[in-house]
């Protein structure tokens, strides 16, 4: 029957496998801190437009909210791109970071605490209403059957 088409059998490329590799590579880059240099604020504001109209989009952000909320307070590798003044530059950066850390650690940990609470609240609210909606839908189903 004509309506049963819309398929193609192909070989040589498996899109789902490629996408798994793409996601692994993204995770790897995230772990190594490559994305810390990226400023996504412009793009994020536009992505938010979709939140109002797409459940899948919202679900994705609810799943990944912890990744953004969990600010890394640990030391990161301090390096210099310049070979000639590399060692003194690294030493100076380390000193500055240690001095700053003393004053800013408290602020960062408070922010991290706030982020964690907010992420928990948002996810908790979502789970709560998800359960309520499921219960209501079940009830409607029973009422329709009756």
């Amino acid at each position, binding site marked *: 029957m004509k*309506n049963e088409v*819309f398929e193609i059998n*192909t070989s040589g*490329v498996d899109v789902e496998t490629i996408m798994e*590799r793409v996601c692994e590579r993204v995770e790897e880059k995230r772990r190594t801190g490559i*994305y810390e240099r990226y400023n996504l604020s*412009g793009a994020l504001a536009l992505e938010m437009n979709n939140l109002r*109209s797409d*459940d899948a989009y919202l679900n994705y952000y609810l799943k990944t909210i912890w990744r953004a909320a969990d600010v890394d307070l640990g030391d990161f590798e301090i390096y210099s791109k310049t070979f000639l003044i590399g060692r003194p530059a690294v030493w100076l950066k380390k000193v500055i970071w240690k001095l700053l850390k003393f004053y800013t650690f408290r602020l960062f940990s408070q922010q991290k605490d706030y982020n964690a609470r907010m992420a928990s609240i948002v996810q908790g609210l979502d789970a709560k209403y998800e359960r309520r909606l499921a219960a209501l839908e079940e009830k409607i189903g029973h009422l329709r059957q009756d």
Partner: protein
Amino acid sequence: MKQHWKIAYVCPRYAAGAAGGAENLIQSWAERMRDRGHRSEVLTTCARDHTTWKNELPPGEVTVNGIKVRRFEITSHDREKQDFFGEKIIHGQPLTRAQEEEWIDAVARSESLCDFIDQHRDEFDLFIFAPYLFGITYRGMKIAPERSILVPCLHDEPYAYLKIFQDLFSQAGGVFFNSASEQALAHRIFAIDRERSCRVGMGIELPGQLRPESFREKFAIDSPYLLYAGRREGGKNTGLLIEYFRLFKQHQGTDLKLLLMGTGDVSLDQEARRWTRDLGYLPVEEKWNCYAASEIFCQPSTNESFSIVLLESWRAGKPALVNAFCPVTRDHCLRSQGGLYFRDYYEFEECLLYFLDHPDRTNLMGENGRRYVEKNFTWEEVLDRLEEGINKMTKSNFEL
């Protein structure tokens, strides 16, 4: 069973340069069904712009590519009311049925078009309406629902969940979809009898020999480019694509550029103009050459029921990068093995790098896309499905 039907195609706009995907689809169906011996007429409005709904074209009869087109004036469009209720709908605030009807009438309504359908309903075997989200479709379909076919061009959007559309979908004589994902979505939201539902789509065929080199020469393009084609507006995520590409250029040393074609305004700052080229609306032949000259095609929109431009780029043999949050385009990619999909900027970047680093696989994806379109979206296949769908609908509703 009747072999040839007299069909009235009803759509809000029907004019060169004024059309969106649904109008394009209707125009192609009307002309090609006429070539198969069916009688086609188009009922439409005098509007060209779907934001102002101004009566720009004269009312009355004209012939467009051999098809009789009757234009009727828009009698109601209330932008303020449309936005007032529209905001409430988007934010999930419940409206009464009367308020929903007020909203749909405020979008665009034509009393004279509805009167014409009412007075001439027995002269036509069928009315085909597209898309679902306009007062013209809502009011027009109510006149003779049993002989009306709805081509909704449906997306998963708040409007789709309004009470008024439950009746529209359940009472239609037939509901014809563009893709499997769109059909699945409709069956999830509405009570539609399987017998009245089918997938049709649109034929995608090359206009002739493709000449990518002459296109590059004519527009002085010497870099490889990522192509976006279609309406440029927020709903299509054109701005998001430009922002993503800005980040890509900031962090990756590549000479890949972004090329835009289509209608609508697009705002590019000085930095973006260094790596973006906007060609605006291109005639058919140049549009196809533009597809053929591109490296990768990108469809960032999440609101697609078919995506003509995606299938056209595949027909030209180019791989695609689509938004993973659009079930229709993602499904096309999985079925064809012709493209990748992204959920955020990081995946967008990594997909582009994959394409650039694996030219053999990239070419293979383009080839898969081309075969997918050739196999499923030739006009012969599409029109067979359309006729079969009409036959199925008439069997379950009435004998023409």
